[in-house]
């Protein structure tokens, strides 16, 4: 295909505007961060000099003005949060109590539909399976791997191998795995790794993605493949941060590797472990790309986020889609609260 710069001009122009806006905003912020504090500093300096010259008592810093200054910096964030998060959240909640076209109030009908419609109940169950399995398995894999490669030879290479999938988008990873699960009829050349494996062992090729509930587990494998690297990196860093003298002391006491793991390593990395599990749980609740790319929710593999998109944007059922979105939101809240409480405890402790 030819690429004509003249024809693509509008896009370049757009890009240019974007860059200019970026420079303006970043430049403006830098200016503020640089000039304004400097001005305050100079003024204070002048006051101090004047005070010391006249022999008067040193003027006290005015707290209030700094508070105003902080508020000034918080404003853009608050504004963006309101526009981008708070308002849509409230609106979605309202929409979930309205009908398809968002015209009339229908009370709890959309929520009733969610828990009575067979296919949607299946979606909720699938999501539950995802959110239990992915954080558990991915974290365990990451932890075991991190412990095993710790201080091993070629540790960096071994770690980067597991971390690599993190660099691929969910959609890309799913396409790769779709090839692994690909199916061709019996007696034909198999193009899928898994079926080739089965065939060379003398079995019959299977349509992996068609069979429920096996297909849900096969999709979960993709997520674990992507996320184990994240768990491994965070936990490996935590393991390395265990003070050497504790490890030393334990060794002198003659602990076995097993005791070392359960009584020294695990308690020491507990905060990191919680962060990993919480992050993975939230990511898993929101899983969408994998299911959509692999099966589009067919064959009983759908999850909440995918069904929400279908209902709201493809079928024109705004109310039902919003109800699913609100439900997802409600599910995430306890995890977030737990995470915040945990962080606060750590800070205090």
């Amino acid at each position: 295909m030819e690429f004509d710069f003249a024809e693509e001009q509008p896009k370049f122009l757009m890009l240019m505007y974007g860059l200019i806006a970026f420079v303006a905003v970043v430049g403006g912020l830098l200016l503020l961060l640089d000039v304004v504090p400097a001005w305050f500093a100079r003024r204070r300096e002048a006051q101090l000099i004047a005070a010391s010259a006249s022999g008067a008592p040193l003027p006290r810093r005015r707290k209030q003005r700094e508070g105003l200054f902080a508020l000034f910096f918080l404003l853009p964030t608050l504004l963006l949060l309101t526009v981008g998060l708070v308002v849509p959240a409230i609106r979605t909640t309202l929409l979930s109590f309205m009908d398809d076209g968002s015209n009339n109030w229908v009370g709890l009908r959309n929520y009733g539909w969610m828990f009575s419609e067979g296919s949607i109940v299946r979606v909720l169950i699938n999501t539950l399976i995802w959110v239990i399995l992915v954080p558990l398995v991915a974290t365990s894999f990451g932890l075991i791997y991190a412990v095993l490669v710790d201080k091993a030879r070629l540790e960096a290479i071994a770690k980067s191998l597991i971390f690599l999938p993190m660099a691929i988008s969910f959609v890309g990873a799913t396409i790769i795995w779709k090839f692994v699960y690909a199916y061709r009829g019996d007696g034909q050349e198999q193009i899928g790794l898994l079926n080739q494996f089965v065939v060379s062992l003398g079995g019959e090729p299977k349509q992996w993605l068609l069979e429920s509930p096996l297909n849900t587990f096969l999709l979960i494998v993709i997520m674990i493949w992507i996320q184990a690297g994240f768990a491994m990196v965070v936990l490996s860093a935590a393991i390395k941060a265990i003070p050497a003298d504790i490890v030393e002391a334990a060794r002198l006491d003659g602990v076995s590797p097993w005791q070392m793991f359960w009584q020294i390593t695990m308690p020491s990395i507990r905060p990191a472990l919680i962060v990993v599990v919480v992050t993975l749980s939230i990511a898993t609740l929101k899983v969408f790309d994998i299911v959509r790319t692999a099966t589009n929710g067919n064959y009983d593999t759908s999850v909440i986020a995918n069904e929400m998109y279908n209902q709201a944007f493809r079928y024109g059922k705004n109310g039902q889609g919003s109800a699913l979105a609100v439900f997802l939101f409600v599910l995430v809240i306890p995890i977030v609260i737990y995470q915040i409480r945990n962080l606060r405890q750590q800070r205090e402790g």
Partner: protein
Amino acid sequence: MAFARSRQALAIAGVLGLALGATACGTGNDKKSGKASSPECAAYEKYQGHDGKKVTIYSSIRDIEADRLAQSWKQFEDCTGITIDHEGSGEFEAQLGVRVDGGNAPDLAFIPQPGLLKRFVDSGKIKTVGADTKALAEQNFTPDWLKYSTVDGKLYGVPLGSNVKSYVWYSPKTFKEKGWTVPTTWDELIALSDKIAASGTKPWCAGIESGDATGWPATDWIEDVMLRTAGPEVYDQWTTHGIPFNDPKVADAVNKAGTILKNEKYVNGGFGGVKSIATTSFQEAGTPITAGKCAMHRQASFYANQWPQGTKVAEDGDVFAFYFPAIDPAKGKPVLGAGEFVSAFADRPEVQAVQTYLASGEYVNSRAKIGDWLSANKKLDINNVPNPVDKLSVQILQDPKTVFRFDGSDLMPAAVGAGTFWKGMVDWINGKDTATVLNGIESSWPK
């Protein structure tokens, strides 16, 4: 130190900004000027007077077809000075709603589903077509076609491209070699299928995987059979929910389609058993015909674009299509088809000019000449249609005796037509029985 560094950053940012600003200035004023006076622009005279205006179009048309689209209205742009900015998206159906609700509607959209069009009409977003456009549309299209974009007596869109779906693709070469003849009745079709199956080849190829639209090729199958078993009147009741989705007449049609699609002896050439239909992409599905692994593939006229490069599409070539035979000849020759409608979300004069132009004979002929495209527009000259299958389709569409019906799933509300009907068909291929599937779809019909 920190101060010095941030000063430096400031300087860099400033210089960058200046440089960018300077280049931005150089790109601004480069408007196309209408060459209204030249002789080849005579045909566009009535669209003049909008020099320098821009019209945005949103559709599901991408890649080569989008390039052809741009080519087809190039002269119109040059002559009138209107810039047409077309954007194609694979997520068209979902994104159009998002864009319209978000206040970012395109000026024009090519909507392939009357059901979706109706949804925007109900929410008051689509404008009625202008008087000029309406007059031209009534001149160039049969009332049947205009019916699909008419709501409460008002016209909200003009048909653009069309396709004919009642085709069975086959290989004339293979048929000649093996001594098979093109069937003209349903009984002949089944007899031929049995004959081919007995010879060791799977007679049928099928595939309904199509990304997030998986299932639609199977709905086409059902609709085509439904038109043949129940007739066009019952078909109309079915698409408008005059009869329930689990009516025995629908079940009959589904089961009749099942005698081919769910017959292990008949399907699925080159891919595996019946269930392989669910995971075979519709693009790939027909290609085993060229390798002699199956003999027939029921798919629309636009499947002509899917054959591997170098495949000759002709009556005596590698592949061609025959009319999907009628079951009861007394009921006539029904044809299933589809198409897209040009609807406007803005009523600026230049938008109406483009909408009118797209309904005109000049436009359809200009587009048809570029290839692989046809329209139900009466002004379309069959000599401008290069592809033999398209020629056949134009003949069918322009034949006054043709009983034409629009793709049923596109007429139904999206929750059914693009939702449970698709999903239901996937489950059906995957082994669920007809009654369960139809009951499920019926219960999802919006009340």
